[in-house]
């Protein structure tokens, strides 16, 4: 078992999520699973169908009954795929379907969590008391989910079987003369064959999902009990640290080596660097030509038929004529520039006059603009929390404890916190600004000079920050303490 090669993401899952993971496993490895499943099933099916050719439903019953026998190889193959290993030797696989098979075909045939228990027999190869002990540890809180999986997969089998039959019925032309039922509503022989084949198809199609869901539940329990996820993460961490150490050692030796090189043969080093520049330039160019830098775009437009790119660039004839005509007035240019200068002066004067008029007109409001606002209003919202006194319930601690009891942890603590902020603004007239952070607010409270109050508020701020940003819940005693503190420090009765 090499956890580095584990093909599924090891993390804690709920039972249902594990079942979903099992469905994904069946999806991913369906080829191997079907081959391993059909290997014993196909010959068995052919023999049974030949034997019971006059009443084929019996073969369906046998195939269904022998499920524990032929769904073992898929499980074994999946366990190898899980760690990206070779399927192993044939001799090992050959003995597998018959191992401890009798109980599974007799009294354990109706076990409601066969898929979940199977790995203990097939993969851990436990029997008797050892098996029972192992199952006792494994089952835990997953028995319901294992039962649910068994139930739903059975429903899926029925659904697929009847769905296939109905679909065939839809698509069989009446003229073909195949009748599924006789005049009394009983199955005809061809009807029996259709039902049998549909049933076998359904059992085969659902088998990988059912088996893998049980296997995934078993895996989930192992991940939980043996903390596979922690082991993988720890191994990665240890590897990273080791790599970092060896990398550092490598760097030092390179630097020493480079130093020696420059001392002994500087020309060679220069050549190496130049070559480096050249190759890196090429590399940069090739990267710049990649898709991420620049794009090609196809643009469609309407254009006249005889139009060409050159026409667009050419200066039209009449413009040249116009410029030549202007040349005739060369002497007038001086006069024109004089006029232009006067126009400029007039425009500047007009603009200045406009500014003067606007200033006169709006002098009153402008002079008021510069003056300070008489009083800065206390903020109504701090870090997204409404801190107006109107938004608070009459009895804050009682409300907090009620919310806490209803598991509204976040709401409870946020209410207590914003109630405190509101009181601090109201009662102690602390100048919180909307831009302050929680820690800055706490610092302001400390600067106010009441030690017990600042100590209390610091505790509350910490509890709030841990819950709000760190998702760390405080325990109930802490909350009770904080509520008592609130009554003592911040309620109406307190000093």
């Amino acid at each position, binding site marked *: 078992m090499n956890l580095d090669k584990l093909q599924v993401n090891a993390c804690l899952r709920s039972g249902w999520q594990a079942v979903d993971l099992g469905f*994904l496993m069946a999806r991913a490895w369906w080829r191997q699973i079907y081959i391993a499943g059909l290997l014993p099933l196909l010959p068995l099916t052919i023999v049974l169908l030949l034997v019971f050719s006059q009443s084929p439903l019996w073969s369906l019953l046998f195939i269904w009954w022998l499920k524990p026998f032929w769904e073992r190889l898929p499980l074994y193959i999946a366990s190898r795929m899980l760690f990206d290993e070779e399927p192993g030797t044939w001799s090992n696989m050959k003995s597998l379907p018959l191992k401890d098979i009798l109980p599974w075909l007799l009294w354990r045939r109706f076990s409601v969590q066969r898929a979940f228990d199977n790995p203990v027999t097939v993969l851990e190869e436990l029997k008797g008391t050892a098996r029972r002990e192992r199952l006792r540890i494994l089952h835990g809180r997953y028995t319901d989910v294992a039962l*649910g999986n068994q139930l739903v997969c059975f429903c*899926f089998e029925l659904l697929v079987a009847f*769905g296939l039959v109905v679909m065939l019925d839809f698509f069989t032309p009446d003229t073909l003369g195949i009748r599924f039922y006789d005049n009394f509503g009983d199955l005809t022989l061809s009807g029996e064959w259709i039902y049998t084949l549909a049933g076998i198809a359904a059992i085969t199609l659902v088998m990988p999902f059912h088996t893998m869901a049980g296997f995934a539940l078993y895996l989930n329990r192992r991940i939980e009990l043996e903390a596979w996820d922690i082991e993988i993460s720890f*191994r990665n961490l240890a590897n*990273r640290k080791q790599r970092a150490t060896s990398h550092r050692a490598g760097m030092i030796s390179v630097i020493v080596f480079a130093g020696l090189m420059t001392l002994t043969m500087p020309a060679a080093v220069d050549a190496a660097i130049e070559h480096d520049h050249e190759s890196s330039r090429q590399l940069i160019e090739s990267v710049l030509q990649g898709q991420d830098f620049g794009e090609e775009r196809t643009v469609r437009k309407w254009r006249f038929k005889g139009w060409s790119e050159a026409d667009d660039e050419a200066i039209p004839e009449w413009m040249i004529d116009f410029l030549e005509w202007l040349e005739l007035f060369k002497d007038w240019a001086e006069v024109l520039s004089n006029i232009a200068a006067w126009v400029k002066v007039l425009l500047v004067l007009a603009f200045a006059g406009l500014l003067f008029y606007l200033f006169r007109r709006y002098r009153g409001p402008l002079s008021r603009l510069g003056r300070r606002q008489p009083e800065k209003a206390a903020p109504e919202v701090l870090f997204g929390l409404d801190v107006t006194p109107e938004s608070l319930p009459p009895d804050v601690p009682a409300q907090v404890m009620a919310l806490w009891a209803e598991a509204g942890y976040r709401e409870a603590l946020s209410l207590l916190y914003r109630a405190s902020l509101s009181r601090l603004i109201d009662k102690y007239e602390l100048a919180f600004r909307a831009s302050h952070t929680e820690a800055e607010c706490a610092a302001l409270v400390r600067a106010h000079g009441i030690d017990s109050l600042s100590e209390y508020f610091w505790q509350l701020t910490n509890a709030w920050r841990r819950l709000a940003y*760190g998702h760390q819940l405080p325990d109930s005693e802490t909350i009770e303490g904080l509520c008592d503190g609130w009554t003592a420090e911040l309620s109406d009765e307190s000093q």
Partner: protein
Amino acid sequence: MLDTRYRVEIPGGINLEAQVVGPVPRFFAFAIDLGIRGIIILVLSLLSIPLGSGGMGGGFFLIFLFVIEWLYPVLFEVFSRGQTPGKKLLKISVIKDDLSPVTLGASMVRNLLRTVDFLPLFYLVGLVTMLSNQRFQRLGDLAAGTLVISVPESAKPAAMQEIMPLAPSTSLLRPEQTSIIEFLQRSSQLSEPRQQELASILEGITHEKGDNGVEQLRRIGAWFLGVR
């Protein structure tokens, strides 16, 4: 790597994650909703008897039947955070595939296409399409661009043990810190030898062996939890 995780990167480089939900829990949710709908229809049919089966009563009953059959999932999904009562019990919910709340249009599309998913009998098409893609979307989901995800449970208060915190000797990345915290919080579920085995992997960091290593790791975990 196989996982039921579904990830969306939103503008700003933030990754949103959700766990997609497969056919088994959805089957149960559907069965529960089916039961609820059945009870409602039964009650309505009893109520409509006094109105007479031929005229008014029959008409009202048929209208209610239509509304319940076609709008029951839509109304719950749009107005109850993507959860019909059955989905609520199974702690799963419908959401758009960019992980924004499901809209009226999307919910309509996904529920109108139930008729196709139901074909030829008992949702065979739905089951097959669900298993033919990684996100377990049935045909209606694919058309509407919706997903069924599991609703994350809010954390319960964890009792903090009395442990002297210890600052780690080297810098650790965030997932590594998380795994050490996990080690502290789950150590009660792990056997003693397994704890020592896990701690021995990190001997390079704790510089301790055996029980002392376990203790050191737990103290580092407490430090990362913010105990000072």
